[in-house]
């Protein structure tokens, strides 16, 4: 069993495009950097080294990415920022994928007027620009703790997933194995759990990979506006907020975290693309699954 899985994984790795392998490598580097941060740097992310003499230093051997205006080491903050930014993104996407999966499966499998009402609700929610909605809630109630931020981002991001899943679930409802299960008197919840969910999982995974990149950008944007993650915690977004006032003179404090974000998001998007190509082969009828028509900046 184990070896079979390992062999399957090996085959999948071999089928992955070279770009995707690179992307996995980049993600691994950032995850390792985040996890090993205490051993990779001798500073703390909130540590102000000397607020008069060591502030706003350009990159040097001692501080490869320079220091920010509070004399904190930018390299250190990027490493620790990866911890926060990556966990927020991953958790938020888990939340939205789960909610979207359950909601979509239920709507699609149930059908009828319940489905209609559920989909109208999604239509309504999609009419409010997500960024504006988040800005309004966060700006009015800031500062929100990080778990609440994760929930808010997660709960405003599941509508697309739900739509995809619902489409798949509707198609599945009339497939033989589901019909057979129903005929055998299986409990609907069990049918959804055993037969529908596993079959709609792959587009959700693809959408999830793309969404992680999306959420990293979103969190950075909110923190840039000063309403996401708060001091002294370092996320990649808060680093911009610190630096934006003086980004002309202290450009390194803006450029380096930006590169970190772009590299990570690029990796997740590449991975998402590659996963889609990989899973498309045994794709169910319908649209190219996770082809979210909108760019990531939403």
């Amino acid at each position: 069993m184990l070896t079979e899985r390992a062999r399957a994984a090996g085959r999948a790795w071999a089928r992955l495009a070279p770009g995707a392998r690179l992307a996995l490598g980049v993600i691994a580097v950032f995850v390792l950097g985040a996890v090993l941060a205490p051993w990779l740097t001798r500073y703390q992310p909130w540590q102000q080294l000397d607020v008069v003499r060591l502030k706003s230093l350009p990159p040097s051997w001692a501080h490869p990415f320079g220091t920010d205006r509070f004399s904190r080491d930018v390299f250190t903050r990027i490493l620790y920022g990866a911890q926060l930014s990556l966990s927020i993104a991953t958790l938020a996407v888990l939340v939205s994928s789960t909610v979207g999966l359950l909601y979509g499966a239920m709507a699609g499998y149930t059908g009828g007027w319940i489905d209609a009402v559920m989909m109208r609700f999604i239509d309504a929610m999609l009419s409010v620009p997500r960024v504006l909605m988040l800005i309004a809630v966060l700006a009015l109630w800031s500062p929100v703790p990080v778990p609440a931020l994760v929930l808010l981002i997660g709960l405003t991001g599941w509508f697309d997933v739900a739509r995809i899943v619902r489409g798949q679930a509707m198609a599945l409802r009339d497939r033989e194995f589901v019909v057979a299960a129903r005929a055998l008197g299986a409990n609907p919840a069990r049918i959804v759990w055993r037969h529908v969910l596993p079959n709609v999982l792959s587009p959700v995974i693809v959408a999830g990979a793309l969404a992680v990149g999306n959420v990293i950008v979103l969190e950075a944007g909110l923190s840039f506006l000063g309403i996401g993650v708060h001091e002294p915690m370092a996320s990649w977004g808060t680093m911009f907020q610190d630096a934006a006032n003086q980004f002309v003179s202290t450009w390194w404090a803006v450029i380096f975290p930006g590169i970190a974000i772009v590299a990570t998001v690029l990796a997740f998007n590449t991975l998402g693309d590659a996963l889609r190509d990989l899973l498309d082969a045994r794709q169910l009828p319908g649209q190219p699954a996770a082809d979210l028509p909108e760019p990531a900046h939403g």
Partner: protein
Amino acid sequence: MGRRVAARLGQAVVVVWIVATLAFVLIHAAPGDPFSFDAPTVSEAVRAHWRAEFGYDRPLATQYLLWLGNLAHGNLGYSHSMHEPVRDALAAALPRTLVLMAVALVGAFVLGILLALFQVEHRGTRRARWAGNVALFFYSVPDFWLALVMVLAFAYWLPILPAGYPVSMATHDYMAPLAAFVDSLRHLVLPALTLVLLTTAGIARFQRNELLDVLPLDFVRTARAKGLSERQVVRRHVLRNALIPTITLFGLSMPTLLGGSVFVEKVFAWQGMGWVVVNAIGLRDYPMVLAGVLVGTVMVILGNLAADLAYGLADPRLRVD
């Protein structure tokens, strides 16, 4: 068709009402009010006086009904953050956002479709892969970061363009019309370019996938069999069919554009809807925020509707009710 549009419009009104009500409750529940602004010597009594004058001391339900009633009469209230009636503030801010969005949309669609064509015509080559990578890169860049880098690069390191900011009438009133126009264009370049780059990437990716979907179809094979060159096949036959879904993107990209323009407007100090609303939230300018939310929602809904109609027009099979 007409009935469908009417039904959609009816739904839209309900959606707008729900969103507006949610926004109303949300903003009134938040701490602070329009008269808790930064002026330490304005006494509590004076603030209370102003509150009473603008009716912010009445019960929430009364305020809600008043607001709805005024809204029905087209009266959006007085904006305390812009110091003028909300209608006037909107009239100034909305065109700025629309200009930015229009330029971005047109630019992004032209560039995006061209980029996708290039990738498909040269598929399998190194050039096409690089084009794809460039598209993916801009697809992955945070909007505000790209905006900051643009300012850094073109307004400071290589100072050839102003850092955005729709320069006021203040200086334009006294310039020759042509000079003023050119100056406006110069101020538009950086923010518009930023938004174009951000939007192009998504459209190119989408268009490319659509093109690739059409490529294996029979009629393409027929065209190829007739001896047309690959370029002719793609431009004449594939593109025509693959464009339909992309056209609907025009309307569907409204939320993305609105979201993106919030950050772009912030960095470039472009006083459009995004800037005004974010500012108004900070100052608890209730009427302005609510109006902004309404306008944003209506724009998204209209975008969706337009996408629907465009799809119906482009694809006759969908025209049946």
